[in-house]
């Protein structure tokens, strides 16, 4: 076993000798990003700023997110309230920074959860094939037949709005949807000769799926996860917009834009403008970063 495996691995350094990697691949990706992908770099900067704002919200801002001040209602932009205040005199910039926490928490949480689920369903479905694959895929078909928003709204209204629930639900939806892509890649990896030889050597299911198929599916998983982040953040915002996300008084970008506050926006248009700008910037940032990472990591998946 080990002898043959060494020979199989032994062919790899010859390929590397042609173009020796100067750095580890995860460092190299970022160097390439800065050198070749200006839009991707811009996206990374936006995402980084958003992260900093979210992490240091309570350090940077002199206000609390739910701190009301009835003497300062609907104050427009000034030195003490950079982006103005809302109908209860709460500082808009502070609320946006805390709102970034929810977007990132739900975004990363749901994508992490969903990636694990997608990998599990995709790899198992592809590896075992046959009847198990057929039924699993009909289940995925059924899930994908629903307009995502309708299904998510129904489930959220059943579970009740909370940060944990929305992460769980968005993660499940993300996982089921993307299991298709993982399955397709796993199917093609499964047919490669080295998987066959691993099986001929008596490798068990766990050894083959975890040791041989998974490492080759990993770049696709990373790409699916990064390009999916913006969609998850946008979906979280639409659910919060409809009042099915994280409940007030905790601020979310979708919730700040929502219909419930529409009457106040006529008096204070910045209440509509800034959350919309923040959300667009975040989605733009994650989109650009995801696209660039996809180009650098997995050119096969390059879309329109």
């Amino acid at each position: 076993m080990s002898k043959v495996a060494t020979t199989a691995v032994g062919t790899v350094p010859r390929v590397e000798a042609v173009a020796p990697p100067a750095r580890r691949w995860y460092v190299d990706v970022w160097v390439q990003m800065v050198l070749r992908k200006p839009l991707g770099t811009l996206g990374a900067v936006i995402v980084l700023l958003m992260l900093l704002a979210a992490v240091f919200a309570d350090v940077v801002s002199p206000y609390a997110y739910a701190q009301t001040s009835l003497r300062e209602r609907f104050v427009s932009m000034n030195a003490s309230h950079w982006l103005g205040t809302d109908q209860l005199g709460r500082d808009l910039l502070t609320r946006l920074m805390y709102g970034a926490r929810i977007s990132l928490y739900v975004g990363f949480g749901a994508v992490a959860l969903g990636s694990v689920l997608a990998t599990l369903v995709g790899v198992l479905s592809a590896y075992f094939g046959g009847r198990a694959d057929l039924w699993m895929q009909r289940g995925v078909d059924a899930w994908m037949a629903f307009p995502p928003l309708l299904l998510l709204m129904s489930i959220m209204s059943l579970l009740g709005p909370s940060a944990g629930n929305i992460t769980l639900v968005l993660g499940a939806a993300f996982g089921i949807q993307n299991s298709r892509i993982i399955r397709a890649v796993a199917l093609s990896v499964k047919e490669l000769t080295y998987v066959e030889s691993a099986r001929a050597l008596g490798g068990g299911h766990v050894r083959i799926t975890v040791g041989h198929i998974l490492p080759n599916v990993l770049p696709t998983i990373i790409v699916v996860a990064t390009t999916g982040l913006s969609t998850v953040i946008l979906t979280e915002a639409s659910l919060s917009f409809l009042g099915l996300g994280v409940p007030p008084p905790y601020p979310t970008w979708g919730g700040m834009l929502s219909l419930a506050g529409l009457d106040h926006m006529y008096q204070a248009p910045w209440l509509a403008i800034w959350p919309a700008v923040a959300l667009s910037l975040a989605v733009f940032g994650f989109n650009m970063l995801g696209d660039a990472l996809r180009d650098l990591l997995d050119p096969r998946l390059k879309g329109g």
Partner: protein
Amino acid sequence: MKRYVLRRVALALPTLFFVSVIVFAMMRMMPGDVVTRMVEGHAYAPTLDALRKDLGLDRPMYVQYADWIGGILTRGDFGRSYWTRQPIIDEFLRRFPVTLELALLTIVVSVVIGVGVGIVSAARQDTVSDYTGRVLAILALSVPYFGLAVLVVVLPSIWFKWTPVWTYVSFTTDPLENLKIMAVPALVFGVTRAGPIMRIMRSALLDVLRQEYIRTAWSKGLSERRIILRHALKNALIPVISLIGLQMPLYIGGSVIIEAIFRLPGVGLFFFEALGKLDYPVVQSVNLIIAAMVVGLNLLIDLSYAFLDPRIRYR
């Protein structure tokens, strides 16, 4: 061809079965608070148990499922709303034209913008117009449609004292007035959906323009306009059409929010209001009807490909 059609239909049936199980199971996980709310808040029945019996919730689960599916398959009966006791299918059909019109207008807007910009972008690759088009597409992808909708409702009323029309008039009573009402929502929704169409149109057209029959067309001395519009566009449109087919659920899902913002009495608003009142039969049946429509639509698209391209039938 006949075998292919049969096989595709046979594959759609288990999907539909799973669809019905998903919505049904979801609704049975409900906490009992709708019954509580109906009895305690609105006195729909003397006791909780009486109302449960009245709504048929005291029966075993498989009986409820069989009853629901049986009613749909044998009588076209999708159940009744808990609150109004009206048949769901009647209300659905009354409201469906609004949602369908919104979806069609949105598709028209996004196709006109997306295909138009996509053509210019591909024909003038790597020029200023190409970059402008691509930046616009990225922007359209980034702006959330509900955010744009809120801005369109709020800002013009402050700056220009202009507000969208709120009272809905159906197309059959006054087509012109109806289109005036639908124009703003369809434009807002369509613009934000034009991004992906533009991107796929651009890459598909670039692909086609490099093929040999296009070179032949050039060497025949045809004008650029004729080559692009008559020869290349037809082939480049195929991926665009399948993208629109794939995105149908997004158009319908998004209409919930658009209808809620612009107060259009469509299926989306019906669904949203039913959710707010925990009216589960409505939520369940509307989900089922729309998912079934999507499955049927995908089946039609698949069959039309097989019809257009004989190679697919033998795969």
